[in-house]
């Protein structure tokens, strides 16, 4: 699904990622944990191709294609999805209009016909109910005036509608109460399948009680310093990140 090979990347002339390698197979869930500033969010932004996140060396293959040659929207159409840590508010653009444009773009890329407005509306309403978001949110501006939890649920709704092959959740659990967290987690779990992979970036082990990962990686100083199974997350929870940083140093 995704192979990252010796990735070096910088943001505003400061190198953040150092020789990062990661191999994710179809159907796997990888958690990436680490202290603040370790490069977790940078990884998500590099993968989606955001401006200002420059790859210095290394390569990334996504579904057999060279990811680094693709534009932001091409990566999305190919099936990459980033659930934002801080979803953007766009007043004046309705959520429905936005979701339809996104789904149309993805379907067109897949050689499918665009959904009619009627069919899409029905699909969007059904999906919004799955993430416990009132369908009235579809008429509002994108994320406009949404609470933190509503924004995160809107991200999961987009993920469900777009049916990506690789989902990156960037600290989707941050700032969520336990109810919202369960909604988000059950949305993710409902989407787990043998042909879909997840990268779950989180600061806290709590999320991994609900979304149980196949692998856990610890990112520190821009590189993966330790990998393991879900037990590693519990160890981190108990000991903090300090012991790893000193172990690496």
């Amino acid at each position, binding site marked *: 699904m995704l192979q990252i090979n010796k990735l070096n990347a910088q943001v505003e002339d400061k190198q953040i990622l150092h020789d990062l390698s990661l191999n994710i197979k179809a159907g796997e869930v990888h958690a990436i944990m680490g202290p603040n500033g370790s490069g977790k969010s940078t990884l998500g932004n590099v993968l*989606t191709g*955001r*401006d200002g996140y420059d790859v210095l060396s290394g390569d990334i293959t996504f579904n057999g294609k060279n990811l680094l040659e693709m*534009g*932001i*929207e091409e990566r*999305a*159409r190919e099936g990459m999805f*980033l659930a*934002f840590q801080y*979803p*953007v508010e*766009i*007043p*004046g*653009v309705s959520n429905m*209009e*936005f979701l339809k*444009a*996104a789904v149309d*773009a*993805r379907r067109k*890329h897949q050689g499918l016909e665009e959904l009619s407005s009627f069919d899409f509306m029905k699909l969007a309403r059904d999906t919004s109910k799955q993430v416990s978001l009132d369908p009235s949110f579809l008429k509002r*501006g994108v994320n406009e005036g949404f609470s933190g939890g509503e924004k995160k649920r809107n991200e999961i709704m*987009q993920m469900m509608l*777009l049916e990506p092959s690789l989902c990156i959740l960037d600290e989707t659990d941050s700032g969520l109460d336990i109810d919202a967290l369960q909604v988000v987690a059950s949305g993710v779990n409902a989407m787990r399948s043998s042909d879909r992979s997840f990268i779950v970036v989180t600061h806290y082990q709590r999320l991994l009680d609900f979304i149980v990962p196949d692998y856990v990686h610890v990112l520190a100083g821009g590189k993966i310093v330790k990998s393991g199974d879900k037990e590693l997350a519990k160890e981190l929870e108990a000991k903090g990140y300090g012991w790893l940083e000193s172990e690496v140093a």
Partner: protein
Amino acid sequence: MSTSVTPAAEFHQHALALAAAQSAALAQQDNSPAWMTTLREQGAADFARTAWPGRKTEQWKYTSLQAFQDFVAADWGAAPEVGSEVVTDAPSGADTDTDAVGNTVLSLDATRLVFVDGVLDMLASDALPAGVTLFSQADADADKIIADHLGKIAGGVDASRRNLFAMLNNAWTCDGLLLHVPRGVTLERPLYIAHVSSAGAGQPAALATVANHRVLIVMEEGSGAQVIEHFVGSGAGQPAFVNALTEIQLGNNAQLHHTRLNMEDEALSHVGAVHLNLHRDSRFHGFTIAEGSRLKRIDYQMNHCGRGADLKLDGVYLARHRQLVDYHTTIEHRVPHCTSQEVFRGIIGDRAKAVFNGRIHIHKDAQKTLAELNNRNLLTSNAAEVDTKPELEIYADDVRCAHGATISQLDETALYYLQSRGISPSQARVMLSFGFINELLQGLPHEAIRTALGTHLAALFAADRALVSDVGYSDQQAIDSESV
């Protein structure tokens, strides 16, 4: 008058000559009312002694009147006959093409009146409803209402701030439209007034069209109405000059929803104003939109005259190519407990220019005033320009007054967000640009206008080179210099 023959002086001469020719024609008719003679003479005298605005005239600092060169070079046609009713092909027929709000009269669920170059087009119009009359056909009662208000509302402006073109409008007034809504009456249907400029259609190229529009709305106590004024170009591409003045009197507790759409095309110059007096507990909700042309200057002069009056004005301006749009708004808070809320948004692209000047004047007795003014501008090209100036003069000490003005480009984070969902950069830019003004469109009470404007603007943005270019939004300057 100056002896050197500058374009300005020539325009002055032409303008006064036209006024004199009209006066001579009017004098031959028996029915020309006394108030009209007074208004015209006063207007011509005021206009004759007022200097042509230059760069040093504060009110015109950022707006050049160069476009008036066209009207100096062109031959001006004779004044239309007073009270004449033209029979033309309906300017666009009754059919409505919602993709082209700029040169099409809309089909709305409203009483429709179509004026072509200032003259009522009977074929394209509905019958005049109760309370609506042409100045030239006014009965004694209507004549008195006109005499009491016409020129008085616009004339209430401080001498130093009086608008040259309002004076000229007075000097050129041959006819106009009165809407009088009696006490306690609410108009069942909105009144839709289309002002069409034929822009020399069917005339020799050298003949410029000059149109003088005048509307007077007098709302008595407790009355209510919705009025839409739509300025439409012909698409003929000939230079035309429109001077359109609307005066509105809102009696105690009256309410008016007033929409003014200025969608004339490139070749047309428009100088217009809305003057408004709000009396006790009256409410005004205005919406205005202007698409650029070689010159568009629109003034809103709003006066709170009675306690508890409430005013809301939303505005949108869009300028592209080398167009110019200039909005000047003034709110005079003269009495206590009034509110005003103004929100203007503009999108300026290519080498176009926009000017927004929002003045709020809170007099010393106007305690407990609540005034808000917000102006946001989006530049879609490096060569676009906007001059925005909030102007606050506050002499009362117990008021709440907030103002803000911003100039920005499209939000990079929002662009990234849309692209990260598979939406192309060009579509994302169009969506964000439309979204920027869509919030204000949503406040319009007429579904049909929202739809027509929405469709029209979406097409406009989709045709915007800067937005849909794949070269990249930030490289716009390079594109501009290539194309020039």
